[in-house]
């Protein structure tokens, strides 16, 4: 089992030119990407971009208009059962039968896949820390407990692909921390391909190895989190008395174009080592410097930048 995201021979999940139309409206447009065992893949996009539609097509709840999806090499279209045997999932909210107990819910799902023992059910219950309340009716559960029960049902049959839609929804910080560690463990130690969608971008930053960004049904890019962050790095903000003249001086003497010019600041896209040179030049030219800060973009800023500043969902 790989330690990082190096592609293995066969992708755990493979989307091939997946297109979905509702009537004449194209909701998902020619989506192709691959997810490998041993990685946590984040699926990002603003509301209505088609994240949930894509997840629904992966688990067979919706049919694709064109293209195909393979799970461990099995087509969701033509080998639905073999494909689904590999998948554990929560789609949107983990809706369970409220009039049944947590345990009865798990027994219900266990009966649908051969070979799940009572011991395995209890093992999963222990894993999500619901031992004390598992024999209570689900209607008495808090949102966080329902979420954990949802994770439990997704893990029952040792899936090699785990798809979690907004998994941290309703979890407390400790719960989020535990889930994150567990997902890492699953992907690193057992080689499970984990697909996560979340609107908590900072959470994604900590949880995911690679991120796929989808906007208006199109895939904008698939990048590793470090590449994703890296593109935004290297900007340095100089707070000065006169932004305009500072920008001119840097342009004339160092032939650097300012990334942004404000009345009291400029931002330059320069490497770390060049900062003293710029400071020297500005000081010599009698520009007053009040501060030098290197600007790192958060995933969220980067996300807004890529998706065109739309609200995040």
């Amino acid at each position: 089992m790989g330690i990082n995201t190096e592609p293995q021979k066969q992708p755990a999940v493979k989307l091939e030119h997946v297109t979905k139309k509702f009537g004449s409206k194209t909701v998902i447009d020619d989506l192709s990407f691959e997810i490998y065992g041993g990685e946590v893949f984040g699926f990002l996009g603003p509301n209505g971009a088609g994240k949930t539609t894509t997840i629904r097509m992966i688990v067979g709840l919706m049919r694709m208009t064109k293209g195909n999806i393979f799970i461990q090499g099995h087509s969701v279209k033509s080998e639905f059962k073999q494909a689904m045997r590999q998948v554990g999932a929560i789609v949107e909210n983990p809706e369970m039968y409220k009039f049944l107990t947590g345990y009865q819910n798990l027994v219900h799902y266990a009966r649908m896949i051969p070979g799940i023992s009572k011991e395995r059910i209890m093992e999963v219950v222990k894993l999500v820390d619901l031992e004390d309340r598992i024999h209570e009716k689900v209607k008495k559960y808090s949102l966080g407990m329902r979420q954990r029960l949802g994770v439990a049902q997704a893990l029952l049959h040792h899936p090699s692909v785990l798809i979690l839609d907004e998994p941290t929804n309703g979890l407390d910080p400790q719960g989020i921390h535990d889930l994150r560690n567990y997902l890492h463990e699953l992907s690193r130690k057992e080689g499970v391909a984990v697909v996560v969608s979340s609107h908590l971008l900072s959470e994604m930053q900590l949880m995911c190895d690679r991120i796929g960004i989808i906007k208006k049904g199109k895939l904008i890019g698939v990048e590793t989190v470090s590449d994703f962050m890296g593109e935004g790095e290297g900007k340095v903000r100089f707070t000065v008395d006169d932004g305009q003249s500072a920008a001119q001086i840097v342009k004339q003497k160092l032939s650097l174009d300012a990334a942004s010019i404000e009345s009291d600041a400029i931002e330059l896209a320069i490497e770390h080592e060049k900062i003293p040179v710029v400071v020297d030049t500005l000081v010599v030219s009698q520009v007053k410097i009040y501060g030098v800060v290197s600007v790192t973009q958060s995933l969220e800023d980067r996300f807004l930048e890529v998706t065109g500043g739309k609200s995040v969902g």
Partner: protein
Amino acid sequence: MANFLGLIQNENMKIYRRNSAKVFAAILIGLLLLGALIVKLNAPEHPTQDTHWKQSLQQQNTQYQQALTQMKDNDSYQNYYKSQIAINQYRIDHNIAPDRQMTLWSFVENATPIMILVISIFTIIVVANSIASEFNTGTVKLLMIRPISRTEILLSKYVSSLLFSLLCLVVLFLFSWLIGGLFFGFSGGEAHLSYINGAVHETSWVLATWQNYLLDAVKLIMMVTLAGVIAALFRNGGLAIGLTIFLMMGSNTILALISQYDWVKYVLFTNMDLNQYFNGQQTRNDMSLGFSLIVLAVYYVVFLGAGWLFYTKRDIKA
């Protein structure tokens, strides 16, 4: 196959663990008790022993004969009077006096039509909820992402709903027998007289009762299947329940309005009452048991096909 039994177990769990299951049981047994109580309270304390019952039946028969000649055009009345005359004659010939009082078995018999209607309504509720409510609650998503085809899931829901009505029939039989016995005495009651193909037969009450149940169950199965189709189409349990019960209750009124047309014999509701071929009270003489069975089979296959398409071929957006 083991997997399919698991699916049936799942659906059973979802039917009987709901609070509605307790309500169904309470209504079923409560209605039987109420019926028995009303009959008991209204019964005369000292029933008059009619020693001239043979004469009374004879009189009744001459009245029926007159009615027969007046009602020449109506198959339904014709057949009804013919059967009553034949049974009365059989009683006179074989010296079997009609019951003056409610007995265990006449209670069981009288309870059958209304109670089977109640069971039909329960099963319509069960099947409609089983198929549609998971779309409303969202549980259908976690149900459908298992390595099981939607056809198997739909079939398990349908079969477990029919098993529910079978269980209801068993409960009905046991409790109407028990309550009938407790209120009207476990002894008494002679053989059951039935009129089939122009002849009167004596049969056992247990057999006659179950024959009744099973013949009524044909209507039940058709209505439950229809409810399932509507539930699969609209993914709305309330609509399926309301529409099916409306059709079931209103069918007689609608049929009466259109009874003069010849094509009425191809209408589902005309053919659902198979009892008419066994109690000699056929509504139209241009129909037969075989005819009705074929018409029902055609409707049934169409229902199953439509329900299957609606359930398995559409996207799940819940």
